[in-house]
């Protein structure tokens, strides 16, 4: 292994950063506040192949890995315009379909997910089940060859821009009668499928929704992969999700840190720039260190995942997500502090990042669930739940 990125990845990083800078945070905020979407950026990134770098070449992807995909997202985030749906569409859904889908499913979805012409949302969380796949109540029952899906999902990102959603539901085991998780692709126009926006205090063009499935009839091939291996397949998609969430958070942290550093270099209150004072330079230096550590763990998780080590990647991805969320929250907070009153203005574009940066501590898995995971798995401590 090497700590130096390949030439190709460096070139991809530079190219994604340049693309991101052309849109930037102002574009992102303007879309967010006007009820718009980041469609132009999404389409342009898609055409350039940046959204599908991890998907197989034979289905229009770049044939690289989550390491490359997360690089794109980190750079877009650092430029101020992260594409949240990258976490979901190519990373979770694309991965699951590429790894477990039938040839027909791959043909149907992957080329579109790779070039951005199709977007697939992902729905796991339920009002009473958090992210606990064992407690999900959205259920699919067989009816002839079809599936009939019923249930509710909540905090689902980007359903308004999606063509379909991958739903984590449960099916009844024919032998034991027990429910087990299974993944279904539901087109957004399917009869019986409705959704409603959730008002959020996030400044983000990516919105959140409650989904309602009322006896939604799906063809047999809506089921992705095996009916019996749903949980395994689900976890295969969740490692990329966490790695991508980490990359998005480190990108956000970089954006905030860059703004803070630029400001404290320029701003002089007495004779020196305020960045010379250790009250500001030390917290910013500390964030820089924590940021690099979070990036390193994200890259490690991606490396393990891309080399086929799902188990090793799981622990690293969770730790990376923890570290990235902490540093994105702290970076934005310190940026506000560094800019003083300007940190809370609309003009300087820092305060508007507060809630979105904070989101990384809550989703896609909460900080506390990660600590539980590490306590139990890495430390062997007993479970309280």
């Amino acid at each position, binding site marked *: 292994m090497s700590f130096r990125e390949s*030439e*190709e990845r460096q*070139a*991809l990083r530079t*190219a994604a950063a*340049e*693309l991101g800078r052309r849109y930037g945070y102002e574009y992102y905020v303007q879309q967010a506040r006007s009820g718009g979407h980041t469609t132009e950026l999404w389409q342009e990134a898609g*055409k*350039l*192949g*940046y959204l*599908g*770098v991890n998907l197989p070449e034979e289905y229009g992807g*770049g*044939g*690289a890995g989550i390491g*490359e995909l997360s690089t794109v997202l980190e750079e877009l985030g650092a430029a101020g315009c992260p594409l949240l749906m990258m976490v979901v569409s190519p990373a979770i859904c694309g991965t699951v379909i590429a790894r477990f889908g039938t040839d027909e499913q791959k043909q149907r979805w992957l080329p579109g997910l790779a070039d951005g012409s199709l977007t697939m949302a992902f729905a796991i969380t339920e009002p009473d089940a958090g992210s606990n796949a064992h407690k999900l109540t959205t259920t699919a029952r067989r009816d002839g060859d079809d599936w009939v899906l019923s249930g509710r999902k909540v905090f689902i990102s980007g359903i308004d821009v999606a063509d379909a959603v991958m739903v984590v539901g449960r099916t009844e085991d024919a032998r034991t009668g027990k429910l087990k998780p299974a993944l279904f692709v539901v087109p957004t126009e399917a009869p019986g499928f409705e959704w409603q926006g959730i008002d959020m205090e996030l400044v983000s063009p990516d919105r959140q929704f409650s989904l309602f499935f009322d006896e939604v009839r799906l063809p047999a091939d809506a089921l992705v992969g095996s009916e019996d291996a749903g949980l395994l397949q689900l976890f295969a998609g969740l490692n990329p999700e966490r790695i991508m969430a980490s990359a998005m958070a480190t990108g956000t942290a970089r954006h905030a840190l860059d703004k803070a550093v630029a400001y404290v270099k320029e701003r002089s209150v007495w004779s020196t720039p305020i960045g010379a004072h250790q009250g500001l330079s030390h917290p910013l230096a500390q964030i820089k260190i924590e940021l690099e550590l979070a990036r390193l763990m994200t890259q490690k998780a991606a490396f393990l995942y891309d080399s086929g080590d799902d188990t090793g990647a799981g622990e690293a991805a969770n730790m990376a997500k923890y570290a990235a969320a902490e540093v994105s929250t702290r970076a934005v907070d310190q940026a506000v502090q560094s800019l003083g009153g300007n940190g809370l203005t609309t003009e300087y574009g820092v305060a508007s990042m507060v809630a979105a940066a904070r989101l990384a501590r809550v989703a896609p898995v909460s900080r506390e669930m990660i600590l539980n995971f590490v306590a139990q798995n890495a430390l062997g401590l007993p479970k309280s739940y």
Partner: protein
Amino acid sequence: MNIVVLVKQVPDTWSERKLSDADHTLDRASADAVLDEINERAVEEALLAKEAQGGEVTVVCMGPERANEAIRKALSMGADSAVHVSDEALHGSDAVQTARTLAAAIGTLESVDLVIAGNESTDGRAGAVPAMVAELLGWPQLTYARKLDTDGQSVSIERESDAGVATVEANLPALVSVTEKINEPRYPSFKGIMAAKKKPVSTLSVADVGLSADEVGLGSAPTQVVSSAPAPPKEAGVKVTDEGEGGVQIVEFLSGQKLV
């Protein structure tokens, strides 16, 4: 049609650029090196012509080993192959020597129809190399193009200068230099990035292009930099408080600077 694009690696315009104290040549270690932006536009224009007319785009670059990165960028945008003239002896070459080297490198290629260059680099800014290369090749030069059309037989440009806009035409082969108004360069696609490494880059020495080491480089350069000094720090601007006369004062300032 076969198109050659002349590209140069330059220090990033956003970084602090320095000349070395010893010989007043560019201190390449002090700044990030990038493909000059004007060259990205030249590559873009070549790719557009290739997409319309078919053919091949070859990048020709003179520079140290590291200039390979700039070449790679052009290849990742879609150019087909590259010629890299890289030789210690070239260090400190001036515009004339650079033009001779580039013309000689173009001479190693078969049947070139069109050479596209940026009008001037962001580091040297002499703006002379494209014209010199055309002269050495004995081809028509169409400089300062803000628009380029070619049908594979001839080339026509809109030439924009302080004096106005003129339409200039020439039969091929010819050389065109482009300004920053010519286009918006594309970003390299991921496929382009992955393919760039596999594209042929021939690295040539000064001897390989048919020149001798004593014709190039600082020692024999026809022009010499005698001294250099850092640019003076920016002076504080004039602040005008608008008390109803702001517009008039701005116009007075601009006309005082002969800008309007």
